[in-house]
């Protein structure tokens, strides 16, 4: 028994953390937001934006580090590592609110193509960062970073219990290649650049059963890890703010009501995180309870991130309720991710089934 990461795993985490701290600060997250106004005429965002090419650079940097292929065998050009090796990297991508399909590409599609012998011959381009791969699950028609996706899969249970992975061809509003302009949906977290998937032709799929279910579990796991990361980001912002902000002549963080809000958020994150890590280990080792643990992780992480978002906003007060301040970038991302790859209630139902109730 040893519930801890190896020094190598932690060193890789630190390298990615450092890269993202430098290359993916809030102004880069903002730069992924489209200009202009939403469907209601409201402005989509304010605040300092980095140049748009810095958004693309983060992805290229991650590709150069080998991160995109961490879950792909060495024979297929990856690093030959497993879920327990990338779970901390996913957490860091959440902490940074990385404006790219990290979970979809790195955690789901690349390892899946590796598992299925790359049936559409796109893996090399995905690993090189030349092609962004997307995935939608559980009948969702919203494709995050949909304007850049050039390879898309659907992971679902069309008959209720059997998992199937199918390639989605057609259906993205305007064509399936990146150079064709697609229409972004108006969304709360506009930095996710969601494109609505239209009607598409379903085939029998290229992965089923355990392979397909593992692909889904990787998506839920990666998202759960991102939620823990986002929660930590919001907590860090809050701890910093309440120590500085003075009211009644004292830092507001010295008030018990504020302390208790943040202690609750920190506790929820602190108990969700080990479940996320254990789920990664169980998936990597093929433990029979792996899917149940993934669902436990996703449910707890979703709830923890949502609680943290609420408490973080509350302790910030009005400054947090602006688009100029950074908190909303993380708060909106957390809310979106808490409901993708199955929301907390969906995962609790899956755990209930696994427990036989």
């Amino acid at each position: 028994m040893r519930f801890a990461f190896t020094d190598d795993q932690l060193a890789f985490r630190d390298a990615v953390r450092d890269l993202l701290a430098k290359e993916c600060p809030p102004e880069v997250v903002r730069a992924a937001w489209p200009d202009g106004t939403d469907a209601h005429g409201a402005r989509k965002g304010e605040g300092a934006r980095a140049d748009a090419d810095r958004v693309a650079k983060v992805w290229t940097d991650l590709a150069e580090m080998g991160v995109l292929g961490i879950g792909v065998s060495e024979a297929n050009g990856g690093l030959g590592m497993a879920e327990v090796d990338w779970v901390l990297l996913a957490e860091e991508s959440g902490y940074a609110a990385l404006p790219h399909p990290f979970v979809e590409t790195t955690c789901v599609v690349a390892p899946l193509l590796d598992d299925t012998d790359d049936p559409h011959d796109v893996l090399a381009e995905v690993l090189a960062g030349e092609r962004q791969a997307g995935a939608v699950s559980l009948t969702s028609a919203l494709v995050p970073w949909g304007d850049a996706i050039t390879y898309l899969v659907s992971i679902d249970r069309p008959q209720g219990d059997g998992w199937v992975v199918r390639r989605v061809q057609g259906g993205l509003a305007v064509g399936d290649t990146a150079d064709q302009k697609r229409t972004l949906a108006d969304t709360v977290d506009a930095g996710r650049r969601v494109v609505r998937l239209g009607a598409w032709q379903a085939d029998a799929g290229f992965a089923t059963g355990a392979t397909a279910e593992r692909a889904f579990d990787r998506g839920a796991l990666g998202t759960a890890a991102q939620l823990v990361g986002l929660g930590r980001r919001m907590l860090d912002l809050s701890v910093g703010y309440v120590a500085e902000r003075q009211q009644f002549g004292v830092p507001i963080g010295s008030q018990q009501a504020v302390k208790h809000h943040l202690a609750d958020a920190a506790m929820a994150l602190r108990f969700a995180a080990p479940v996320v890590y254990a789920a990664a280990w169980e998936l990597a080792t093929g433990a029979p309870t792996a899917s149940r643990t993934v669902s436990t992780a996703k449910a707890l992480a979703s709830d923890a991130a949502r609680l943290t978002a609420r408490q973080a906003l509350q302790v910030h007060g009005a400054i947090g309720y602006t688009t100029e301040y950074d908190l909303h970038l993380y708060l909106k991302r957390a809310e979106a991710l808490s409901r993708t790859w199955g929301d907390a209630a969906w995962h609790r139902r899956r755990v209930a089934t696994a427990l036989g109730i």
Partner: protein
Amino acid sequence: MDLTWSADEEAFRAEVRTWLETELAAWRERHGNRILSGDTTEGFAQHLDWERTLFAAGYAAVSWPQEVGGRGASRWEWLIFEEEYYRAGGPQRVTQNGIFLLAPTVFEFGTPEQQAHILPRMAGAEDLWCQGWSEPNAGSDLASLTCKATRDDERGGWVLDGQKTWTTRGAFCSHLFGLFRTDPESQRHRGLTYLLVPLELEGITVRGFGRLDGDEGFAEVFFDGAFLPDDALPGGVVLGGVGEGWSVAMATTSSERGLTLRSPGRFTATADRLVELHRQRAKGDLDPGLRDRVVQGWMKAEAYRLQTLQTVTDDAEGRSAGAASSFVKLWWSELDVELHETALDLLGAEAELDDAWSKGWQFSLSGPIYAGTNEIQRNIAAERVLGLPRK
């Protein structure tokens, strides 16, 4: 990362499981299959019998060294023992406040002579220890305590005056460990001493009173000029140094709040029983929302188990949890209430009847209060873990 148990650990689990199955049945049989609460006079005697059964087999305090009554088990084996103990439905440990609260402090601060005397008698349930901290006017604000111990060099000992209260199982215990003000000029955390007190001394009166759950589990302890001789216990009656009581006591609080008092096995066993209760009740007309709550409770117990494995690993590798034990206390105490409330809702109108769930629910209500209220724990977590400014 490796979340599997070794073959030796699995063998230990099998051995414990078999032993518990046999011995629990035998113990219940000896008492006519009518086991009462350990916080009643008759029930306490039954539970003492059980404690001595555990001790004879080396299971009273598995992680202690053999020389003081344990079996030198690893922290991992201790967790396994706890899982099996609660899975088998083992009874409350009436020796608990000694074994889980005082013993860690004795290991850390006791002299070899104190350790050799106190620990084996504690494990063997010959001496039964209660905790003398709270006073009528010193609860969460423990440092405001006023019980005093006045030095009497002529007779060689301490004269005790004052009152302790809400002392768990005080009416059944033989000894008390507590904090006393030994420097009359001192304020707050200074000038306190951690004393070990036999309750049979003249001038000490113990009055038991009912807890919310109806058992006579509480006591108030009055000290009226009681003389505590230095040699009342081999190795002396002061644990740590005179005037060092606060820092010595704080070592016990982190044991109490953290892992040792409430191992995950207690809650995973309760959660599993809750799942089973849902299975039984699901035949009736059950609100579908209850299933969600059962799962939520089960998941939180699982999170507690996994968080513990992480903490024990960190501890073994020298990364101390420190003040984070406050989060642990918050988690298990609130989880315990949640699990029991869900069980009562599953039972519906029947929940009013006395049974293990309604009894357990009443007990669970004490969790957010004892071992430092949850409000205090949130302050500690926010200040010492998150680093928020103090008042």
